[in-house]
């Protein structure tokens, strides 16, 4: 069986045993998504590379940090990348450049700009599903969610930027989360 044909669970099991081929297969499967979200959040290739580097290194050094009982590997790993990306931009105190970053990025619900990326079938389908769920959100909910998730903004910062009360940001954020949870995780 080719490494690319193995499931995430099989690859993670291999990784836990120190199988470098399994590690590299996970890299090839998830590095484009990881780098994509890290680039989107940080807005800077150098920082995004550091985020992806550190996330994969952490995965290699501590594969047991992923507990299969808590959900799919993909969610675990990409959440790790996202959180590191947000932490990185906050550390760097680059808030004043957020507008510049956002202006330079493609719309989330559009087509991929990196044609050389070939998702496997499941990942590509999931990507369409996630984008569809985001597109289905009311625009005001989608805006606050994207500012939080991809902009790394706190709710207070979002409120200030949009000129709305923090309570409204909280309400819209949780409403968006509730809808996404239902659409993507099948939960109410």
């Amino acid at each position, binding site marked *: 069986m080719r490494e690319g044909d193995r499931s995430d669970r099989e690859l993670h099991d291999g990784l836990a045993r120190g199988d*470098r081929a399994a*590690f*590299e297969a996970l*890299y090839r499967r998830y*590095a*484009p*998504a*990881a*780098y*994509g*979200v890290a*680039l*989107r959040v940080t807005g800077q*290739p150098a920082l995004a*590379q*550091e*985020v992806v*580097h*550190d996330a*994969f*290194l*952490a995965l290699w*050094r*501590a594969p*047991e*940090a992923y507990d299969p009982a*808590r*959900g799919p590997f993909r*969610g675990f790993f*990409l*959440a790790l990348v*996202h*959180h590191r990306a947000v*932490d*990185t931009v906050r*550390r760097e105190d680059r808030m004043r450049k957020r507008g510049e970053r956002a202006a330079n990025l493609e719309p989330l619900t559009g087509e991929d*700009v*990196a044609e050389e*990326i070939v998702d496997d079938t499941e*990942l590509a389908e*999931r*990507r369409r599903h996630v*984008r569809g769920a*985001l597109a289905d959100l009311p625009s005001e909910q989608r805006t606050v*969610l994207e500012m*939080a*998730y991809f902009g790394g*903004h*706190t*709710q207070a910062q979002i409120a200030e930027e949009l000129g709305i009360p923090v309570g409204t940001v*909280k*309400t819209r*954020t*949780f409403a968006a*989360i509730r809808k*996404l*949870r239902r659409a*993507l*995780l099948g*939960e109410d």
Partner: protein
Amino acid sequence: MDEHERLRELVGAHALRSLPLEEVREVVEHLPACPSCRELLAELETLAGELALAAPPVAPPRLLLARIHRSVEAAPRRRPISMFAAAAGIVAVVAMGAVSMIAMQRASRIQDRAGTLGDAVQAMSVFGTTAFPLRDGGADGSELVGVTGPELKHLYLVGEHVPDPAPGNVYRLWLERGGDFFLAAEFVPEEGVVVLEVVVDPTGLDRLLVTEESASERTDTPGGVPRWSTSLSSEA
């Protein structure tokens, strides 16, 4: 809206990493007593990972994989730690790598202990923190501060003016729980600065101990020379 519903909203925002420190602290203090919010957070962390797929995938630079491989070679997995970690409930030990240099550089500018703690917390985005200075057994002016992190499963060790161990030696961080010691990390400072992340549930930990030991000798209990320590019994 009742108080619990408000906290569930905070849990959701926390999964997106959009809360300020004071609200993260509320979440962290609430989670241990609330199974439903812990379950919610676990689900929403998965959701947060899925949302990453909305960003256009981008091919990383070709050299990145080679660089990761070099880092793996330079910092191989510590098998004994994994073994001890399983026994201790320690999930992982992560040296923060290149990104941590940013925090290190910031940490190196810190002027006093309070500033050290505040900047360390801010620099490393460790939310919902409890901080505890480690007593310096060598009285050489070095400072180490432990910080518990988000969702009560991280512990950071941050220090400045930390002297290099003797040639052939390393520092080892030991966690004591119920009279048993577990090896959590092995490190040497970089230009006097230490920034380590240990993924661990700190609940029930009694003490942190840093020893200076021979790099070539491994034991399952602290050896060498005790250098820094602190009791966690009142903080954990």
